[in-house]
């Protein structure tokens, strides 16, 4: 296997010398990296049946070629176990799709990064956390898969803070890593990829170009409409890119909130239509100058006092992630981006429900 790897070989003195090399070349995110030795890279390729020269596309804005070989090297650097590699590849394939607008996401002053959501049997098999603490620390798969994608954006895409290509005004903690599983065991609805036409037995990776993380607590509502009114008020946040651009907006419901709504017979479409009707901004609170600005962006809505954050109900995307508790999360999007879902498949394009099918 290693005979087919064409990457330049570089000799370093030791672990620390590799960190210095990575720093000089801006192959880094500020944290220590695992040296990508031949043995480790070969092990990473165990769960990939594609040729190392196969490319998933190019990564904006530098348009470096995302070959299997480079992705394996970077996945090693991020600390991924080999069984995570199919997810890393699918995530990269997803973010390079034109509708995701990675060129805009990498450049923007907004606090934006891809959120990676793994759905299906493979998420359980490799241990991606979609329950308690899913967006936080402490799970190796979540941490390193998300980190690997970020390092791909930096190393192959050139999305560095210095030199200043990534121009995010504040940055975003998710720019270190932002990956979780969908909590398909706890959702009262079809899993997100099934809503998008994928088979229930498929494993998939979905990416969302998210713009912040706004938690919303409601411990008292036990009625679906009451709870959805609380969440709608949070989704109607002013100043988001959804407000200025429209586009898709992601509501991540905790299992307890999802159960209240789903067990009352509400479908995902019902939730989307309710949000579209009730997650509206009171335009009378805004100065005329800002309204004038919005008139050039979303003219259809500006002269309505109740201004929606998306243009169509189905642009409210609904996911169930998280564990015990009554906190749901609104993740507005970059606006000029669309979520992309990619199935985890082998080189022949056949779905890979479990790792055994990929082991070479």
């Amino acid at each position, binding site marked *: 296997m290693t005979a087919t790897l064409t990457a330049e070989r570089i000799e370093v003195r030791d672990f620390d010398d590799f960190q210095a090399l990575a720093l000089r070349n801006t192959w880094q995110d500020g944290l220590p990296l695992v040296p990508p030795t031949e043995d480790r890279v070969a092990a990473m390729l165990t769960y990939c049946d594609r040729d190392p020269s196969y490319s998933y596309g190019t990564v904006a804005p530098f348009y470096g070629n995302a070959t299997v070989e480079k992705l394996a090297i970077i996945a090693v650097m991020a600390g991924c176990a080999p069984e995570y590699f199919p997810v890393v590849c699918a995530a990269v394939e997803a973010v390079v799709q034109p509708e995701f607008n990675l060129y*805009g996401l990498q450049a923007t002053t907004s606090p934006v990064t891809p959120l990676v959501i793994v759905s299906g049997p493979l998420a359980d098999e490799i241990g991606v956390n979609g329950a308690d603490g899913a967006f936080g620390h402490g799970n190796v798969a979540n941490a390193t898969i998300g980190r690997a994608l970020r390092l791909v954006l930096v190393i192959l895409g050139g999305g560095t803070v210095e030199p*200043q290509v990534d121009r995010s005004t504040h940055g975003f903690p998710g720019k270190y890593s932002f990956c979780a599983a969908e909590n398909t065991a706890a959702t009262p609805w079809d899993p997100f990829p099934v809503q998008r036409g994928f088979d229930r037995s498929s494993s998939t990776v979905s990416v969302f170009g998210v713009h912040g993380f706004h938690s919303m607590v409601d411990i008292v509502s036990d009625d679906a409409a009451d709870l959805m009114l609380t969440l709608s008020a949070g989704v109607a946040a002013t100043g988001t890119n959804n407000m200025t651009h429209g586009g898709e907006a992601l509501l991540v419901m905790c299992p307890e909130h999802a159960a209240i709504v789903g067990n009352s017979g509400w479908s995902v479409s019902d939730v989307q239509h309710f949000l579209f009707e009730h997650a509206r901004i009171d335009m009378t609170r805004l100065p005329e100058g800002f309204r004038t600005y919005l008139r050039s962006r979303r003219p259809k809505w500006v002269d309505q006092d109740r201004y929606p954050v998306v243009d169509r109900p189905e642009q409210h995307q609904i996911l169930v992630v998280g564990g015990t508790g009554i906190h749901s999360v609104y993740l507005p999007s970059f606006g000029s981006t669309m979520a992309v879902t990619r199935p985890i498949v082998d080189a022949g394009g056949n779905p890979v429900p479990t790792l055994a099918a990929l082991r070479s």
Partner: protein
Amino acid sequence: MPITVLSPAPSRLESTRTGAPRPEGLGGLTVGLLDNNKPGASIILTHLGELLRQRGAADVKYWCKAHPSGPSPYVAEAAKQADIVISGVGDCGSCSSWSLRDALDVEAHGRPTVTLVSTPFLAKTRIEADAIGLAGAPIFAVEHPMATRSDADLRTEAESLLGAIVTSLVRAG
């Protein structure tokens, strides 16, 4: 004990882009303005269009995209209907990058372009032009911030950029 590591550095794609040939003089040319819909951009661009007309351009055409942070749907139309194109004005990260990208895509159709951004985004767009394969693509900066300045101030700035823009778009006739 030395370690041998594999380099993660990407193989760069071979550049297939070359700058469009520059026409001789402004006389008779149609100027295309690709507005990115940022506040103030239309003031700067339309004033530049008027100044170029005063200097001999025959006509000015104007397109404004709905959202600054994505591609302009008017790239092909502008390349077809205009002889020289000004794209901008990028005053944030994604909109400056996309104004540049719109311009470079017009160049790929064989029309000369310049891109306008605000000062903090000049270095990054130059780096990106290099990465996209057209190092040295003409990019000029206006003072930042742009959105809160008076129309008169923006017109004055357009006037100060005019000479450099003309030099970048046409050969001395």
